[in-house]
């Protein structure tokens, strides 16, 4: 291998070599994925706990880029219980979106591949599918019917050249098993628009996305996600592009709809305030790994991982006066050359001796609270 250079410079020759190797690996994955008539037994599994809607188990999703392998998600495990909201927090690039895209199997292929681990999706009747092994044809039935997604940018999530009604109906028609008529489709679409709090539903049915405001567009995207009564909704920063007053409306709406349909929400955001309001369980991610997880109370009242503590202190809060905000020193390590030790060590102000050792394993510090940090080594809950 060529001499390691610190400035990240890569010669064209080196880059070509990496690219060739990557293509070999990704081609193998693509080939496995494109097989026809895959027997159900290959992707059929059982949930470890039937009360969970989704179980992420040691998930690894990598991107094979021309400059090296980016381990965007590197060993993520957590559960989404039925009827609960799980908040996933972390900074940009920490792998929260890649985790959710892995569940939908919508990673940018062929570079993006789930290379290891299972994502068990509860499809009811004591059955579960491992979506990482499910072929495309099966995934198409799962998306929308079982899992659906609300995206961050409502403007880019909607097609500007089709009317709102057509776009929602498209979802219904794709997943139509009851052979409904055109009138029934339209009635259902209008019902959906009313459900998400759009007063002028008949009018909006005939409008184009540009005629709606940001908040209304996000409601339409939510209506589209809910069209087939999915069991789990992935909300990927659904309110980041909206104003606070509209954000409050959308969060309220999501809460109401969740209670009405008893589905689970996987809520991805970088805003701790939104998480506190929405989530029953919280997963904190850093550099592709889960550093801490627990109930919202665990995380907000007893944060254990130094990163979680730093994150909490660095956010200004209305009504809480501090002279200087805490800021986590340094920056996230380069995703292509991750260190062998704890990824947070170089930014951590609470290091202990073992931190130079290998990446800390997950330690259970209470019934619901898990943390990956050596500070709690030997302090496990019985």
């Amino acid at each position, binding site marked *: 291998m060529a001499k390691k250079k610190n400035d990240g410079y890569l010669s064209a020759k080196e880059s070509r070599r990496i690219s060739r190797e990557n293509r070999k690996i990704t081609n193998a994955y693509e080939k496995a994925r494109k097989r026809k008539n895959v027997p159900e037994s290959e992707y059929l599994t059982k949930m470890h706990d039937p009360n969970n809607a989704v179980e992420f188990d040691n998930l690894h999703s990598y991107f094979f880029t021309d400059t090296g392998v980016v381990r965007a998600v590197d060993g993520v495990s957590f559960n989404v219980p039925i009827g609960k909201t799980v908040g996933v927090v972390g900074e940009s690039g920490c792998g929260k979106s890649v985790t959710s895209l892995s569940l939908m199997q919508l990673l940018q292929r062929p570079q993006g591949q789930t290379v290891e681990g299972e994502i068990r999706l509860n499809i009811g009747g004591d059955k579960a599918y491992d979506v990482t092994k499910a072929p495309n044809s099966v995934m198409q039935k799962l998306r929308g019917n079982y899992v659906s997604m609300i995206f961050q940018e409502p403007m880019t999530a909607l097609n500007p050249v089709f009317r709102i009604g057509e776009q929602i109906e498209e979802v219904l028609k794709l997943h139509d098993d009851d052979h409904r008529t055109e009138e029934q489709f339209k009635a259902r679409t209008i019902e959906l628009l009313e459900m998400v709090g759009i007063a002028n539903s008949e009018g909006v049915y005939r409008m184009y996305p540009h005629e709606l405001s940001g908040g209304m567009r996000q409601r339409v995207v939510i209506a589209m996600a809910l069209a087939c009564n999915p069991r789990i909704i992935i909300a990927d920063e659904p309110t980041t592009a909206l*104003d606070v007053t509209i954000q409050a409306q959308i969060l309220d709406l999501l809460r109401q709809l969740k209670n009405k349909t008893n589905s689970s929400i996987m809520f991805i955001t970088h805003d*701790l*305030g939104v998480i*506190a*309001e929405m989530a029953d369980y919280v997963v904190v991610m850093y550099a592709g790994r889960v550093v801490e997880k627990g109930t919202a109370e665990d995380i907000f009242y007893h944060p254990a991982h130094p990163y979680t503590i730093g994150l*909490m202190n660095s*956010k200004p809060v*209305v*009504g809480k006066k501090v002279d200087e905000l805490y*800021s986590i020193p340094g920056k996230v390590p380069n995703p292509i050359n991750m260190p062998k030790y704890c990824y947070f060590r170089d930014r951590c102000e609470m290091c202990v001796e073992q931190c130079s050792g290998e990446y800390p394993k997950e330690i259970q510090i209470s019934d619901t609270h898990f943390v990956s940090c050596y500070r709690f080594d030997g302090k496990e809950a019985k």
Partner: protein
Amino acid sequence: MSNTNQNDLRENQAIPTVDGEDYLLEVKNLVKYFPIKGGFFGRTVGQVKAVDGVSFHIKRGTTMGLVGESGCGKSTIGRTILRLHDKTSGQVLFNGQDIFSLSSSELRKLRPKLQIIFQDPYSSLSPRLPVGEIIGEAVREHNIVPAAEFDDYITDIMKQCGLQEFHKDRYPHEFSGGQRQRICIARALALKPEFILCDEPVSALDVSIQAQIINLLRELQKNFGLTYLFISHDLSVVEHISDTVGVMYLGKMVEIAPKSAIYDHPLHPYSKALISAVPVPDPKTARANKRVQLTGEIPSPLHAPSGCPFHTRCPYAKPVCSESMPEFKELSKGHFVACHLAEEIND
């Protein structure tokens, strides 16, 4: 036309000022309308009233926060103050001097004193210039320092902003968002400004980086006696950095008050709703939170409602609200509010 009446009304409104104070910036009845061209021969068919009679003052060495929903005219105010837009009417006094009466050569002399930091550090830096040149270009242009000291001066400014000397020869794409924002700050600071307009400087950044940039801005303010106008839609950031806060709605200022007053006792129903809508990172309070929930959305500034612009969404609205624009009056010292019912609903 009723236009003159409206203007008279504005003249009579109280301007939030206490005489004898050292104000760096005074904005008086600033109006900025954007014409909408359309129809045959591109006639003006309407006006977007982006800023509609706004007055406020900023004391030297302090920070004024400006909050409001998108499209309420926050950024337009900022840009009009810097004369990046022309005004429709009104006055902007910088050190007692009306910046709209200046000739272009006078304005050029004033430019270094008024600087701006933009929201998106990705699009506000030229990708083809090395960082040293980005920061130094205007310094050379305005002869801020003698040519012999130029290099040392730039290095010094970069260090103040948390950048290293070797960053000088690098290009913007080699930096992360937070560091780019530091470059933007260094660029503004290098001209020895008195006033910096911060137009959502931390909105595009992650929480931990946001904290670094906010701390940097505060430190620089202390060291150089800078005055900021801090525009943001994030109320918690504004609370942290500002001394006074102005709340805008649909081109109008609805409330101005010292920070503590506005966050503890907001008087205008819109400020109440805005502050209660901010999510609190504490599960128990967040869920118990009694919200002043607003229905509907901000109306189009093209067809602003009559009377108080907020009456269409206001939970307390009465008939009077849709008839006349409320006066901007001082309810307690330094606390100005534009609401007919301000006394009534705050008893």
